[in-house]
């Protein structure tokens, strides 16, 4: 019944249009055909017949555009800003840190290495987009058989020279599934290494100049990873995941986020907000590894503090929502859970490191406080 009525209505509409506008109503193409038309919107007859866009050059440009649209490259078009970065830019421009983000996207050209730094065979060419440095990805994994293949599938879409999977303490099929991928180096450790140790283990094996760190439980589309790689490829030393679009007012921050904000502010980088090496994905340069030492990656906030204190170039060029998408486990839920406790410990360790280096007050002034009087060493003039 319903179907019939619907068909009647449709026919009525067609008739109405036909009689009023004196134009043939387009036939509703099947779903598959419609999709094809969306990919090649200019392939329809009338618009090509005459006027703007009918010439040979325009046709060539159109075909080039179409090819670009159809090949799903994570790098987008050849012009400076890709579709993806534009979107990120939009997200960023809402926050108060937008200037930082814009800078990260627009200005890294200044840090490009000289041409001499090209390495033969190292630059990866996809759709005309070149990376100047060799790229590596380090994926840490512990019992993540459901998500690890998804992670690797996305990484395969990018021109990595090395993909290193550090599987530790896994009792599931992670190893088997990872070994199905070609060009993946697997580090297998029977016992669990503990949080973040896998990153350092992977980084030690990597030989590339740009190293992207990922978790096996968090698949991220290749398009979303490009900004991190590109930032480091163009001269940044650390490209952090910008989480500021995903958090609300300070009143809603959990303890860990408060510590992240504090550490960045103490070190004079309030613009980095709560962005931290604790969160994946992030990419680092070889220079960062040489400066802070690979072993310090095991305590990410400490590595970050060292990077800032050493004046390395730190940006937050992309945003991946790891807050809502983080896998819920028995030990990472609720305030004061063991993982949160550990991360707070990491930050306190980073702060100890800062205080050791910059003094008890972290280099902040004591603005003429007469402490001997506070200690009561000098009796005052009682008026």
């Amino acid at each position, binding site marked *: 019944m319903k179907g019939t009525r619907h068909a009647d209505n449709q026919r009525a509409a067609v008739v109405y249009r036909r009689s009023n506008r004196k134009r043939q109503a387009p036939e509703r193409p099947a779903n598959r055909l419609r999709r094809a038309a969306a990919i090649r919107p200019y392939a329809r007859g009338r618009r090509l017949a005459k006027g703007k866009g009918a010439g040979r050059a325009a046709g060539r440009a159109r075909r080039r555009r179409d090819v670009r649209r159809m090949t799903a490259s994570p790098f987008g078009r050849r012009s400076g800003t890709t579709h993806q970065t534009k979107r990120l830019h939009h997200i960023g421009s809402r926050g108060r840190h937008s200037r930082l983000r814009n800078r990260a996207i627009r200005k890294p050209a200044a840090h490009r290495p000289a041409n001499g730094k090209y390495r033969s065979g190292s630059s990866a060419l996809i759709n005309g987009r070149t990376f100047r440095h060799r790229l590596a990805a380090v994926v840490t994994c512990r019992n993540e058989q459901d998500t690890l293949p998804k992670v690797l599938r996305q990484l395969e879409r990018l021109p990595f020279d090395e993909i290193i999977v550090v599987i530790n303490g896994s009792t599931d099929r992670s190893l088997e599934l990872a070994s199905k991928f070609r060009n993946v180096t697997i580090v297998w450790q029977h016992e*669990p290494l503990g949080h*973040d140790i896998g990153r350092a283990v992977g980084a030690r094996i990597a030989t590339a100049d740009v190293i992207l760190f990922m978790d096996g439980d968090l698949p991220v589309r290749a398009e979303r990873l490009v900004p991190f790689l590109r930032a480091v490829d163009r001269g940044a030393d650390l490209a952090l995941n910008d989480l500021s679009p995903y958090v609300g*007012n300070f009143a809603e921050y959990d303890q860990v986020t408060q510590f992240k904000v504090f550490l960045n*502010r103490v070190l004079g980088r309030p613009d980095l907000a709560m962005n931290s090496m604790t969160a994946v994905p992030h990419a680092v340069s070889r220079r960062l590894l040489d400066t802070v030492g690979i*072993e310090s990656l095991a305590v990410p906030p400490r590595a970050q503090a060292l990077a800032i204190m050493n004046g390395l170039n730190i940006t937050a060029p992309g945003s991946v929502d790891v807050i809502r998408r983080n896998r819920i486990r028995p030990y990472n839920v609720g305030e004061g859970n063991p993982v949160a406790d550990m991360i707070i410990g990491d930050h306190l360790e980073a702060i100890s490191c800062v205080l050791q280096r910059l003094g008890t007050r*972290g280099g902040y002034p004591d*603005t003429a406080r007469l402490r001997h*009087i506070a200690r009561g060493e000098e009796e005052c003039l009682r008026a």
Partner: protein
Amino acid sequence: MTRADYMSCGTGAVANTCTIHTIGRTHSATERRARISVMAMKLSVIIPVRNERPTIASVIRECRVLDPAAEVLVVANGTTDGSVEIARREGANVIAYDAPLGHDVGRSVGARHASGDILLFLDGDMVIPAAKLEPFVRLIREGADVVLNDYSGNVQTKQPHDVVVAKHVLNSALRRPDLRGLSLAAVPHALSRKAAERIGFENLAVPPLAHAMAVYGGLNIRTAPTVHVGKLNPRRSHRYNGDPTGRLMMGDHLEALAWLLAQTDRRGNRHDFGRRRNEVRSR
């Protein structure tokens, strides 16, 4: 000082004052004595003053309203606008220094000279009605060692002030996230004499350090209803002068964290969640 020293201070007072509210009924002799001693607790108000001519008289008058028998100690330092004379005219005990002592040093000096059992700390530039100060004194009488103003600063923003962040972080590091941004760095606050002695008078000059010592020492910390000091505080445009007070407070909080990390280990006694660090130790 060891942790045990701090711990021992927190109890005592609570135990013998828990019957205060049952006034009017017959008590044992011990209870009566305890009650009398509590009611007889003398109040000292400590007011550091620099150039607070417009407000100082009202501040002192509110103290008199709060408790006519209170000892009002004005610690004037680097005063040039006649605040000292006004304070004296209002009947306050004035301790005067020619040179400015620096931030919060006046609190140390005042506490050292105070004779009361309850130390209430105010600022000379902020007139707080006696009715709002009353809970601070009452809670100490009821056995608290430290009474804080229930004020965390402006947290309904994406860009809180450095000091707000630092206060929250310090409390988290002390494993008291429930205290949020409450701190001895904010006025008004009250200390029992015992607590002040336990913290050490000289440490009161660095309020976050005193706060860390009070919390880590397990003192009995209570909160009084919010006094919105943010609104009372005159707006200082730190955007143009580099926010020296903010930087000072940041240093104070780092000093407090340094103290805490010296009492514990470099991770604040937090575990490593089974990290096998020797796997990546540099060779």
